[in-house]
């Protein structure tokens, strides 16, 4: 019989190794595939710096566009909240930092559990309202694909199970912690092969656009 401790050991051990292998392999593959395609060299005389243009766009595109904001303020605000929340919960929770320390060899400052807990609730709510909005708005629903819902689910589950593990909901902590880790592992496996790749490609695309603009000396 597999006890909850056995299950926890299993997801902390062999399953995590497999998920890591698929995650890292997939991301490395996808990024190198794009980069190795290369662009045609641009022989025109530069009118500005590619680097400056690239870096500028990297950040400037994080700011919302005024007219877009007027049209869909709700999506932008909820989207920002959920992305920031996801970042805080993933990278500033102490147990998570210990995981990164194991991989990278260094750590950073973590937030108190109470704060992480509050941010998790806000993030979960933001994701829920975005889903409801997606389902209720006819245009959004029409534009949504199956992949959109898969990606939403695999992102939502780690947050939900993490919250439930901390609060000992439904199952005892060891089992809930095991489920939380498993949900992250599912996310890791799905990540490189879905639109979740935007986490990385977003910055590549921005930099490329910005660098081109910089090369041509486009004034911002």
């Amino acid at each position: 019989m597999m006890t909850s401790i056995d299950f926890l050991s299993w997801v902390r051990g062999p399953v995590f190794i497999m998920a890591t292998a698929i995650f890292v392999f997939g991301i490395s593959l996808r990024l190198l595939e794009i980069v190795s395609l290369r662009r045609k060299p641009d022989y025109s005389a530069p009118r500005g710096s590619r680097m400056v243009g690239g870096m500028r766009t990297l950040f400037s595109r994080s700011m919302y566009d005024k007219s877009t904001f007027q049209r869909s303020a709700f999506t932008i605000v909820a989207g920002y909240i959920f992305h920031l929340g996801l970042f805080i919960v993933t990278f500033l929770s102490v147990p998570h930092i210990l995981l990164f320390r194991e991989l990278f060899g260094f750590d950073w400052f973590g937030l108190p559990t109470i704060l992480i807990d509050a941010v998790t609730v806000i993030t979960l709510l933001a994701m829920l309202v975005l889903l409801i909005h997606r389902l209720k708005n006819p245009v959004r629903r029409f534009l949504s694909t199956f992949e959109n819902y898969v990606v939403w689910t695999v992102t939502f589950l780690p947050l939900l199970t993490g919250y439930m593990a901390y609060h000992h909901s439904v199952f005892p902590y060891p089992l809930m912690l095991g489920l939380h880790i498993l949900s992250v592992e599912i996310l890791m496996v799905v990540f490189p092969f879905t639109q979740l790749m935007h986490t990385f490609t977003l910055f590549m695309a921005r930099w490329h656009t910005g660098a081109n603009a910089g090369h041509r000396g486009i004034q911002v």
Partner: protein
Amino acid sequence: MSKPQSIAERLSNQGFNRRDFLKFCGITATVMGLPPAVIPQIANALEKTPRQSVIWLSFQECTGCTASLTRAHAPTLERLIFDHISLDIHHTLQAASGEAAEQIRKQAMKDNQGNYLLIVEGSIPIGNPGYSTIAGMSNKDMLMEVAKDAKAIIAVGTCAAYGGIPHAYPNPTGAVSVEELITNKPIVNIPGCPPIPVAIAGVIAHTVTFGTLPELDSLKRPVTFFGQNIHDRCYRRPFYDKGLFAESFDDEGAKKGWCLYKLGCKGPVTSNTCATEKWNAGVSFPIESGHGCLGCSEPNFWDAGSFYKALSVPTGDFAQTAGYALAAGAAVGVATGLLNKKKKGDAAKNHETVTINDLDRKQQ
């Protein structure tokens, strides 16, 4: 042999009065999570019922569980329980050994057929019967023989409950727990390495008092003692919530008594009563002494990763795996990229230029 004394007489001989006895009954009710109304019932039962016959078998064990229960602290609940039960045989404690001891065991089994409690300490090797024998009898055979006519079985300690350290990888003796061999008897698991004495005593007291076993969870553990995890009851928990952690065993945080999560404490996944009942007559428990919980009362705790790795950290060498995966992904990515480039080049090469004249010709 003199006439067996009643518990009241025994207690008074030892210098305890009636108040002490009722206090003991009150403690028993409290630790078992029972309402005060049952205190007289416990007193009545302990005073009147005949002494419960107990057969204690020691298999692949270190005697830590017995030591835990028999440490001298006066007056303790554990000692009072020992005064009340009739411990007919205990391999480790008794003076007799070999055939003489076996005779006592057989006599006790005969006299209390169907009524004795069987307490098992240690795991049972099934790899080879010769790994552990008593008077030439394998542990498995003895367990089967004694369990047959037992009222109930209490598996004391992680070894008897889940196989424990002998069961740890690669399990050279083929050690198994009691419940893996016995399926037709009521079993209570009181895991721990060693188990907390009051848990053993509480279960015995409950069985003697009510004639039934206490409420058990899915791992057959008494809910009263194993219903909550150590982390939730730990006095260092507020530091966890505040994000204050000891980073090493001798840093400022450790001296200030901050949370030991980062040092590998398994308190969050360990169900036991150490943080509330504590050890050594309530002096402290491992976390209070400055070391993280090892999770010794959980199944397979020995194989559940390093004691000094935080719970959130994977147990395997995932950094190396990540390195290989990165290289493999890069290689395949570049290869795909080159293939795509070739495809693009070929397409360009095979491209047929079409002039406006060609189109005109085709239309005609």
